[in-house]
């Protein structure tokens, strides 16, 4: 899964152990500054830790990009309830496969990040909620947890500091929605993956009704270097308000698909052409989904953009989970949109009206269009149904379905019209002549 060498443009910080021998073992970890950040954190006050994370401009790597330090600061310090740390290792967003590598090659950095978070908020237990398909990673993580316990980094009275903290893995069983933080908590409590009403937010009432810090795996993995090298150093790697590096999973029609660690704000075109080796077969770039299937698609001409949360928002899309899906000129956009919407219809939990009915409706119409069974008005229906879902569903899954749907039909309308009018698919025409 790894290229033999990192690409020269990469800044290897979170991925720096990936190519070491036995990279997942605690010995390798300890030999490469492992648990040093935690030792440092033990000497800091909780406020100092949170301050450092704030300074780093670290923003959540799970999708929404919420400032991590700020999130931690919402945990009520004086609550009498136990507090929990939860790592979101559900990695379900199509186009995203980076947490998998972090856990496979450097599980201890996740544990150390969770430990530091626990120190910052006073938590006594942590859970890694990991998608059921990642069974082999559960085994790797369980081994890492066992090692850490044996070396006194987890358990009671850690390193003689008086701090108690332990981590447990928890398996999902096939549900994209369980990546949504409150659905995840429901699932963690043995229930259907149906999201919870907010407020209260997990910071005040999360796992088992107690204050909880919930972050993406990569977010936690970024914490040890922040503590060790200082928040500012991390912040400086990126762009303003978008600190650090991030793991981009580049998939689709590129010559060198893979997961690359690049500084925040890295140019998307450079990413495709330089880092990922350019578009496959020398074809023309047609479109890119820059942050996982939930993000609005960009036309090729919109791709000269810095890959950080704010720049992409300005470009009308999102950085999301960092899953860069590259499509060349042979890609049928109707087919792509239909496939994406079938995914959301399959994964909608069904709890609220607009998501349950809207995803089904969109998937049905787009699939008909894909098959050449379009009816007049279908394109308007897709745009309108997507608009009616947007911002009106119980959780963001509805938006995640509506945004690709509307952006595909709006930006590639001519292709949808061709399908509707029974003309040959323009993309297939290209494919034949290519």
């Amino acid at each position, binding site marked *: 899964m790894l290229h033999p060498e990192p690409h020269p443009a990469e800044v290897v910080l979170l991925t720096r152990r990936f190519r070491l021998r036995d990279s997942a073992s605690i010995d390798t970890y300890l030999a490469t500054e492992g648990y040093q950040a935690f030792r440092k954190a033990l000497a800091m006050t909780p406020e100092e830790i949170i301050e450092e994370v704030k300074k780093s401009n670290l923003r959540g790597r799970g999708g929404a990009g919420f400032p991590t330090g700020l999130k931690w600061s919402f945990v009520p310090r004086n609550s009498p309830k136990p507090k929990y740390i939860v790592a979101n290792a559900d990695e379900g967003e199509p186009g995203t496969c980076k947490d998998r590598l972090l856990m496979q090659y450097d599980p201890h950095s996740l544990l150390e990040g969770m430990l530091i978070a626990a120190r910052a908020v006073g938590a006594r237990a942590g859970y890694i909620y990991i998608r059921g398909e*990642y069974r082999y990673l559960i085994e790797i993580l369980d081994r890492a947890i066992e090692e850490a316990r044996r070396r006194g980094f987890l358990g009671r009275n850690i390193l003689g500091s008086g701090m108690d903290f332990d981590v447990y893995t928890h398996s999902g069983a096939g549900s994209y929605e369980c990546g949504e933080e409150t659905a995840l908590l429901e699932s963690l409590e043995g229930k259907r993956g149906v999201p919870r009403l907010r407020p209260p937010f997990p910071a005040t009432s999360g796992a088992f009704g107690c204050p909880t810090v919930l972050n993406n795996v990569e977010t936690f993995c970024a914490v040890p270097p922040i503590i060790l090298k200082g928040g500012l150093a991390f912040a400086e790697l990126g762009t303003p308000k978008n600190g650090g590096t991030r793991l981009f999973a580049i998939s689709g029609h590129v010559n060198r698909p893979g997961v690359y660690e690049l500084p925040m704000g890295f140019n998307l075109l450079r990413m495709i052409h330089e880092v990922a080796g350019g578009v496959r077969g020398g074809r023309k770039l047609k479109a890119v989904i820059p942050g996982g299937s939930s993000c609005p698609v960009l036309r090729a001409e919109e791709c000269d953009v810095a890959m950080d949360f704010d720049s992409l928002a300005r470009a009308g899309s999102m950085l999301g989970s960092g899953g860069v899906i590259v499509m060349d000129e042979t890609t049928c956009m109707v087919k792509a949109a239909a496939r994406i919407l079938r995914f959301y219809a399959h994964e909608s939990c069904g709890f609220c009206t607009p998501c349950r009915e809207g995803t089904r409706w969109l998937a049905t119409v787009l699939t008909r269009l894909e098959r050449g069974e379009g009816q007049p008005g279908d394109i308007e229906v897709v745009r309108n149904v997507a608009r009616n879902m947007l911002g009106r569903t119980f959780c963001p899954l509805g938006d995640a379905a509506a945004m690709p749907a509307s952006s595909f039909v709006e930006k590639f309308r001519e292709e949808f019209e061709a399908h509707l009018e029974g003309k040959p698919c323009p993309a297939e025409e290209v494919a034949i002549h290519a």
Partner: protein
Amino acid sequence: MKFSEQTEAKLARLVESYPPDHRRSALVPMLLFIQDEVGAVTPQVVEEVCARLGISPLEVEEVVSYYSMLRREPAGRYHIQICTNISCMLVGGAELFEHACRKLGIGNHGVTEDGMFSLEEVECIGACCWGPALQVNYDYHHHVTPEAFDRLIEQLRGNGLKQRGT
């Protein structure tokens, strides 16, 4: 119901992972681990899980019917899950799935007559950069071309027959 030592050990560890008054938390992983051994979430499994976690059959049904990896009927010895989601689709995931249907002579959710293989078209499995990808039970296979798929099937069939023989 009593399960193998390994499974029981896993279940025992699970139950200890949660706050004492949240035994139910073990439900989803417990069902999955038991399914790994039994092959499906059978009515007996539901009953057993109810007893172990002190919850009602309805509460278990709600959960079983929600999660896509939990199933009521056993899959084949080798459960082949092919991702056809966008990243894999772009590099031939859908074609691979169609090829697999033809090769195995079964459709989505089908099981071959000899019970050796079952097939499922699945959503993204987190292998987007290495597609087309599939999982056989829990094992990942990346960059699977139709030819590689055929080789994989032959090899698995060989293993299966060997295991059956011994």
